[in-house]
């Protein structure tokens, strides 16, 4: 048996290739996996690995200030991508373009600000997004 937990760098290599849902499932495997998956850099990789060209240098500090990559993925990237490509099964395996990323970051910033407005507690704030992004999570009501 190959004890993957003893080779964390390999484990991270594998995890980097997963999609968001699988990462979430991976976090439930054991405590060690959970702490590795919660590492924001994995989610950074998930958000931007398909971005061409790669995001600018200052992006990381901005994203971290606004809540981190995992939150960016959960609250913005995942719903935006699934909405922009409604109907595709592989949600993340597509190439982002610059414009889509910029819009996503702007929406993330508005969401951060709305939590600021909502009164205090922005640090680690709840998992559910602020009101203005709820529209992204609603089921698409197409032609019914």
């Amino acid at each position, binding site marked *: 048996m190959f004890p993957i937990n003893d080779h964390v760098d390999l484990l991270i290599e594998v995890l980097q290739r997963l999609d968001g849902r699988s990462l979430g499932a991976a976090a439930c495997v054991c405590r060690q996996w959970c702490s590795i998956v919660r590492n924001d850099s994995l989610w950074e990789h998930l958000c931007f690995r398909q971005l061409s060209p790669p995001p*600018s240098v*200052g*992006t990381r*500090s*901005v994203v971290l*200030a*606004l809540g981190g990559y995992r939150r960016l993925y959960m609250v913005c990237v995942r719903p*935006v991508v699934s*909405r*922009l490509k409604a109907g595709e099964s592989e949600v993340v395996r597509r190439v982002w373009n610059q*414009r*889509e990323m*910029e*819009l996503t*970051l*702007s*929406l993330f*910033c*508005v969401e*951060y*600000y*709305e939590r*600021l*407005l909502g009164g205090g507690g922005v640090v680690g704030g709840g998992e559910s997004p602020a*009101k*203005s992004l*709820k*529209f*992204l999570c*609603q*089921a*698409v*009501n*197409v*032609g019914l």
Partner: protein
Amino acid sequence: MGPYDSSISPAAGSSNSSSSACSSSTKPPPPDQMDHLLAGAGYKVRSNELNQVAERLQHLETVMVKSLPVDISEMVNDAVYYNPTDLASWVDSLLTELNTNVTVPEPVPVNTDLSDLHEFPSGMNVYGSNHAPEMHGEFSQQAVTPLEEDVSIRLVHVLMTCAEAVQRGDLSLASLLIDDLQALLGRVNSGCGIGKVGSFFVDALSQRVVNSPENGVVQVELTAYENEILYHHYYEACPYLKFAHFTANQAILEAFDGQDCVHVIDFNLMQGLQWPALIQALALRPGGPPLLRLTGIGPPSNDGRDSLREIGLKLAELARSVNVRFAFRGVAASRLDDVKPWMLQVSPKEAVAVNSIMQLHKLLGPGPPIDLVLDWIRDLNPRILMVVEQESNHNQPEFLDRFTESLYYYSTMFDSLDACTAQPEKSLAELYIQREICNVVCCEGSARVERHEPLVRWRERLTSAGFAPLHLGSNAFKQARMLLTLFSAEGYSVEENEGCLTLGWHSRPLIAASAWQAIPKPSPATMGR
């Protein structure tokens, strides 16, 4: 049978792959072929007969609903005689069966937008919003029965008659008609469509008739907090404000390219929802962020809170998190023409952007305030003046014209709202719009501030005030389009109109964004030599 014989259909099992490649073309099928969408559902209808079949099916439904139950049960108990696959002849046969003598109305020339007719097999609902306005189709409804549709049409007619009576000063007739209208409202579905927006207009009319038809009523003032709540819900429930903010930000960003000291003047700060995205975009711009000054204008506080200062602090906190040097200044003024340029403290070294989201129309009341304000804006020499306004003419001198135009405009807006998301946000957003409606219908003189004018009028006005248009680039357009695909309702459309962008519901633009640059005034030293 050669490989390129086009009479071989791809389904005929020909194993010659080049043949099927040839017979599949990317051209749209010729009109007398079967509609392929319906064919997928098992119905055969020719594309050029779609309108007619739709009309006949509609008529069939009318007849079946209006028939006595006894007639229908006879039909239901019999075996099916006619094959429904051929829809056209099936519906004709059924109509003949029911012995209808009523003439089927001639098909109105409508957009043969097939995405509407795609609803066919499930809904039989032909009332897509693409109906031509002359068929009262601008008040599009969700699946209504023909009876309800008659009531809706009557509602609109009585509304118009009542407005006309108000304009003539015939108050007794107007009061009677309002009673009529209340009765009619009881018979329609007031949860959506014409029922809902109709009830707001009836309400506004009755306020006007009861209170002061000549001089108009004065609307109850809300606290700053209440106004902000309504505005925020309107922001969330529909894309108009988001479109305004994002388009304005993109234009301002481009105007600030290469500038190190920038100053944005916001004519209506509210909760400052527009600015986080700009701050973030400036933080990430190549070359680093500039020093950003924001001057927010807003009404003086009437509830003890210093709302301007609070918002300034929150924006400063955000700017600090993303490392953008930021300074905020609040200017309290109840009307835009109370603002004097010295209050804005513009420094000559900075690049100035003036941002007016649905504010300039408030200056079109009696007197010359709009010209004075445009004049001092020009004196600030802004690199960009961003103007977003409602795309409608609610400032006509005749009451009836205003009423008609606003009925059409707000019905369309409510339609778009209906197609969007969940409940609680919507009702407060509707209240926000209702206050606008009330102002247009009930108020007069300086109390009537919602004096919307269409883009063409603003173009004339701004050009004669010394501004040159700046084209909103393709970036703004693409961003707006992308923003729209994120919304749950399909039906919004972004159009480009001579360098300006409009957002509308189906083919009706509802909000227009334009950018302007001040033409520097000729300096006195060079004049008159």
